């Protein structure tokens, strides 16, 4: 859509911005009593953010602890069979009648052994159908130990809807996908997509959907998934 005024209004705004910036900002050194000397050009963002251990075990441990706080079910499994067995237990407990998943090596290995009918969200899907599924099983880009977040992207996780529309979101990840912190996550995304173009959707999902809007009392499953399960495969 292009109305004739679009370009004009853009130009007008840029003129106003440049005029406004003609005077350099006045900074008030005395009004910033805390100016830590360690903020130098060499400093990295990881230095200020919450500490994460260097070894895989430490990171795994932190991820597990963060998951408890976030009410994410986190489980390390030894194989696709064990992952499927766990999901089959969840299916019985929660009376799942249908689950949805997308194409992917982990998904395919696990989905083949599920007892619940599987709705495939591969090249296209019907949102009304997807809405009736009891769980959405996706892969991910990475798991972030520091914050307990799952990094989802459109290509890695079956698009935008699969991970948010069904009431239970299950993430399947490999041990090699565990990363330390948020700067590492952005570095990973840059390496993978920086040159060829980023996906239209990247999300850090941290725990199941939640709200505290009523009396600041935590309720899970406001609009998105009520439950989040993360299974770590070899």
């Amino acid at each position: 859509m292009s109305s004739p005024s679009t370009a004009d209004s853009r130009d007008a705004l840029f003129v106003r911005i440049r005029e406004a910036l003609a005077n350099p900002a006045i900074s008030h050194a005395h009004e910033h009593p805390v100016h830590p000397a360690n903020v130098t050009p060499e400093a990295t963002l990881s230095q200020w953010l919450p500490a994460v251990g260097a070894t895989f075990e430490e990171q795994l441990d932190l991820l597990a602890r963060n998951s408890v706080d976030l009410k994410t079910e986190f489980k390390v499994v030894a194989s696709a069979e064990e992952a499927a067995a766990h999901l089959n237990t969840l299916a019985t407990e929660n009376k799942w009648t249908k689950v949805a998943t997308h194409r992917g090596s982990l998904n395919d290995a696990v989905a083949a052994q599920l007892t619940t009918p599987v709705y495939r969200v591969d090249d296209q899907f019907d949102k009304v159908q997807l809405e009736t599924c009891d769980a959405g099983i996706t892969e991910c880009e990475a798991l972030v130990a520091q914050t307990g977040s799952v990094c989802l992207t459109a290509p890695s996780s079956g698009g935008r809807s699969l991970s948010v529309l069904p009431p239970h979101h299950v993430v399947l990840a490999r041990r090699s996908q565990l990363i330390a912190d948020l700067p590492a996550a952005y570095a990973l995304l840059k390496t993978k997509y920086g040159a060829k173009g980023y996906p239209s959707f990247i999300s850090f999902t941290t725990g199941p959907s939640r709200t505290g809007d009523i009396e600041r009392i935590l309720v899970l499953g406001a609009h998105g998934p009520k439950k989040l399960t993360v299974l770590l495969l070899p």
Partner: protein
Amino acid sequence: MIAPKSLFKRDAAINAADVPRRTFVRNALHGYEVKRDLNKAKFQDWQSARETASEIKFEGINHLDKYLAEFAKNAEARGTKVFFASTPTQAREYIINLAREKNVRSIIKSKTMTSEEIHLNDALEKEGFGVVESDLGEFIQQLRNEPPYHFVFPCMHLKRDEISQLFHDKIGSAQTDSPEELTMIARRFLREKYIQADMGISGANFIVAETGMISVTENEGNARLTTSLPKIHVALVGIEKILPKLEDLSLFLPMLGTAGAGQLMTGYNTMFGGPRQPGEIDGPEEFHVVLIDNHRTELLADAEQRDALHCIRCGACLNVCPVFKNIGGHTYGTTYAGPVGSVITPHLRGLQDWKHLSGASSLCGACTEACPVKIDLHHHLLQNRRNAAAEKPVWWEKSLWIGFAILMRQPTLYYWLTKTAPIAQFFHPLVKGSILDPMQAWTRTREFPMSATTTFKDYWKQKKKQGAR
């Protein structure tokens, strides 16, 4: 129409007297503070994080033209339509025209304060479009036909029975006193709206120049649904939300979560870099970003207060503000309440009409200390006071200061007054708190401190005579 200042005074008096509500809000904010401190402590160096965040924002805001152009170029390269709106009218017209052109019938919205700023819902409804707010708090406020109380916690002033009654009256649900059940009522009600809607409107917490993305922070998943299912996604964003680089988010996301709601990371932090791309299985066909000025460039032109545009709208300054806790969010009469609202509203809507907000502060500085991007909030309140007085002096204030100056330059007169003050105070109870009382504004609800019976000078002489140090 009543002047903003008179309204403010009236509502402040009413709300400050509502002690149960005040206590309720105070308790909720205390819970927030505990969680915030817990997560702040996880940072290896919170003060350096603040400093760095402030420097990144400084870079972005002070080269706003460069970064906005970069954002637009990169966003457009991915098929995003970028529109720059100078005024609320331009922004509203753009969205309304788009909705008309695409035969939109129903619109779902996730939280965007910018749309409150331009009264988008009213405009859309007037044009015949159905608009539903999907954030639980905003949904409740929409049903109440009331603006948000707090820009992060929209209905934090309401108790569960009030919400239950509201749902009962407006959407016919059964009464309940369980927050969980109330949340599920809203969930069920809104589910089908997402599926039906053909346009989703969101805000954005950040826009990234380097990659042409917007970043949206939320807990409920409503913004994710709003931006996944409808065939058109419109994001309405203030021009100051700029960040130069994508990796800057690795600092800003946890800082926003921590300062904003006491969460190390908010539930969903999502970056959108265009409409559905080739090879992707879903997402909107069209993605529009409407960047709005609405007087932000006037604040930008104020070299002294430009850093107020660093604001990431976390709400931390409201949460710690004694004034906010006592008078509540609606009293401000502004889109943005609390300390940051008091600083920026005079720039956005006129200094003389809104200067009273900068006056309504004890200048305790709690806001400045809480701010994750180190905006010098309480000094900006002082600067607004100074600028307002310089621009349009108030005659009686001026004469008061002249009188005060005379008094302070006449030691004898001053001495005589300190001697007579206790006598005057002895008779004060006769008029105390009434309209005859010159101190009425203070004494109506408070005690006036007793004036000293000896002056410091006399006291010192006395001490010296006694040989004390």
